[in-house]
């Protein structure tokens, strides 16, 4: 049962990365959308795409946390006590991102939209970096079991964490550009689709290069992770690379819906590669923490599985309705000249 819940938790991590990661990436593109006038169409598309779904996408993170502390309490305690600084920064970034996005939609004056837009975009860039840095700290074995046993600074300020932080930002931007390309075409804006296609191609190449260069960082900074990635997890690493190359090719030939699949696969394969490299250790740092050591008792696991089953049965159709409703959406209405943020 512990394995099932671990898989469930890791699926949540993956979905969060693929959906909320792209929402963060879209916010970063908002930052890079250019001056108010010319950038208005891009910002309108971004807002139109993430508006109805970002709150639901965000909940996957809550899931990861509650599943972790219910099913693997020592893991949650160790990670959150040692890495409390980046976790607090992520929480504050989540607050800034979500509220600024909601506020920008609610106000009508340009200078206010600019301030909220800047807060939204900046926090969209910073928050995934710290999330990646947290992952890097865990992956490179800098979080020992126990309460605050790791270094509260170097556990997230280290080569692997910086690499993972950068990759998290880039991957989010890459996914966002890929999703937005298809959204732009669906809503009848071919010129915007072309713009985001170029962005996706460029950021896709950059992400691939950083990931490849990152293997060198991992090799020297996190030898155990390297051993796992180049050993058991090698097929997944290769799959990620292949899916990344395929995505670039599909973008080149303008297969915008198919590229969503391969781009998501490229990102997901990295996450599952990390998981496979580390398994059965949840924490690699000595003395280590395995799944069996961290798992809660049978009654708890059983109750969590039952409630997760009922929850998923309710969730799946609701979620399907939400995405279908807005993926079959109407074209974006042209933005009013004085209000760049209104869709």
């Amino acid at each position: 049962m512990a394995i099932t819940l671990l898989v469930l938790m890791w699926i949540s991590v993956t979905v969060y990365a693929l959906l909320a990661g792209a929402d963060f990436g879209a916010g970063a593109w908002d930052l890079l959308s250019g001056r108010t006038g010319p950038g208005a169409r891009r910002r309108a598309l971004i807002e139109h795409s993430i508006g109805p779904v970002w709150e639901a996408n965000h909940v996957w993170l809550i899931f990861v946390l509650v599943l972790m502390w219910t099913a693997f309490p020592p893991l949650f305690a160790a990670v959150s006590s040692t890495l409390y600084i980046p976790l607090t920064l992520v929480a504050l970034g989540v607050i800034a991102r979500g509220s600024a996005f909601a506020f920008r939609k609610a106000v009508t004056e340009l200078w206010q939209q600019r301030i909220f837009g800047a807060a939204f975009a900046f926090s969209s860039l910073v928050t995934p970096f710290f999330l990646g840095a947290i992952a890097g700290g865990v992956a490179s074995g800098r979080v020992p079991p126990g309460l605050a046993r790791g270094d509260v600074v170097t556990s997230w300020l280290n080569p692997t964490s910086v690499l993972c932080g950068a990759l998290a930002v880039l991957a989010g931007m890459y996914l966002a550009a890929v999703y937005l390309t298809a959204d732009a075409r669906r809503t009848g804006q071919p010129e915007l689709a072309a713009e985001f296609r170029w962005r996706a191609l460029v950021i896709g190449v950059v992400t691939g290069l950083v990931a490849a260069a990152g293997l060198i960082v991992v090799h020297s900074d996190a030898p155990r992770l390297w051993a796992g990635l180049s050993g058991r997890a090698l097929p997944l690493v290769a799959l990620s690379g292949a899916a990344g190359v395929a995505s670039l090719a599909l973008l080149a030939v303008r297969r915008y819906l198919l590229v969503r699949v391969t781009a998501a696969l490229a990102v997901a394969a990295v996450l599952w590669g990390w998981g496979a490299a580390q398994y059965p250790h949840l924490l690699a740092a000595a003395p280590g923490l395995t799944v069996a050591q961290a798992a809660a008792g049978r009654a708890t696991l059983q109750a969590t599985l039952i409630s997760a089953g009922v929850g998923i049965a309710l969730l799946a159709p609701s979620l399907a309705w939400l995405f279908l409703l807005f993926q079959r959406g109407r074209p974006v209405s042209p933005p009013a000249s004085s209000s760049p943020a209104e869709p």
Partner: protein
Amino acid sequence: MAGIAAAKTLTALYLSTGTGGSQTADPVAARSQMGFSLGWHIILACLGVGLPGLVLFAEWRGWRTGDPWYQLLARRWAKALGVLFAVGAVSGTILSFEMGVLWAGLMDHYGSVIGLPFSIEGFAFFIEAIFLGIYLYGWDRLSPRVHLLSGVPIVVAGILSAFFVVTANSWMNSPRGFKIVNGRLTGVDPWAAMFNPATGPETTHMILAAFMVTGFLVASVYAVAMLRGRTDRYHRLGLLIPLTFGVIMTPIQIVVGDWAARYVGSEQPLKLAAMEGLNASGRHVPESIGGYYAGGQLHWALKIPDGLSLLVHLSPNGYVTGLQSAPPDNRPGLITLIHLSFDTMVGIGFALLLLGAWLALAWWRTRTIPPSIWFLRATAVSGIAAVMAMEAGWIVTEVGRQPWIVYGVLRVANAVNPAPGLSWGLVAVVTVYALLTVVTVYVLRRLARNRPVPDAPQESDVTGYKVV
């Protein structure tokens, strides 16, 4: 109680492993940060539980009667709901982080006991967020009937979220569903932990409080507008619907509050003693109102003879436990704060009951809102008052449980994350929240002013008002 033995073994466990009570641990900073962010979020959470019902009611009336005032009210409330829900969702996120960032010791040992309601709450909140997206963004896409129905899960899931998350707090007051044998946690039964003796009174009390906060807070906005001369039908409806909702909940809440106090009296006698500033145990204990606690007794309080004995046991001879019955390091501190918070909560509750009686009387006789300016003034402050009562209630629950984080089982000092520098987190959180408060209030005010309510709404005024 098995809990005391459990606490001793746990303390021993902490000392032997060296993870608890280290010099760097900062329980005061952690408690301040948790109290601050929770106290802030809970106002938004109340609106998240109560407001969807009000919006749906207005939308339903507008649909059935074709009355454009109701339709406009529904749209404008929905727009505010969108902003409030977003801020509530993200300000709730930090609380999940804080469970580990601040209370790593609690989650390390008891995550498996109280994790379940949080997991279920996660699903309920997910449903809420999904349907809120459908409801707000689908306003002009779905048929009126389907749209109205798409709002129902928001109401249900909102109430369920509140229920499940409060069961976790009720477990901290009445820990059940586990055993400690030789310092190890065994026999964990998460269902028994979730449905503990505090669950019934605490969850009911909180959900009703959420309804009251929403009702009086929304009504107070329109009372202020009416005091400024906007007495048209839109503002009268905006006042009457939420106020009626709050007024209906008030007497029920007072009865439930009595149930909650009886629970405290039987399960957490020291908390009741703190609420009453009662030092010595005894019979014929008076009910004390106001005053301050110093040097082991309550000064300047108004005393009603035998009052507390009567309230707790329905008998003037009823025995009530005082603070002295426990060793000093097992007693809560800040008795004056707990006592006055309790009095504030109860006092406001009865004041709101009077306000409701005033409305009911006027409505019964003349079918109008009482024409007195004092009624509007009272309604205008009722929103803030309801929030104060709710916050005071949480102070009673949380400060009254000290020094325990899990009553009789785990001390706050042993639950806190021992990492250095927690107080910087407090500074960052307070700064961000101060800013967030100012901006949220500002944006909500702009929302109302940017699009003034028309004197006689046409259909175009209604459909032209975009919810998102």
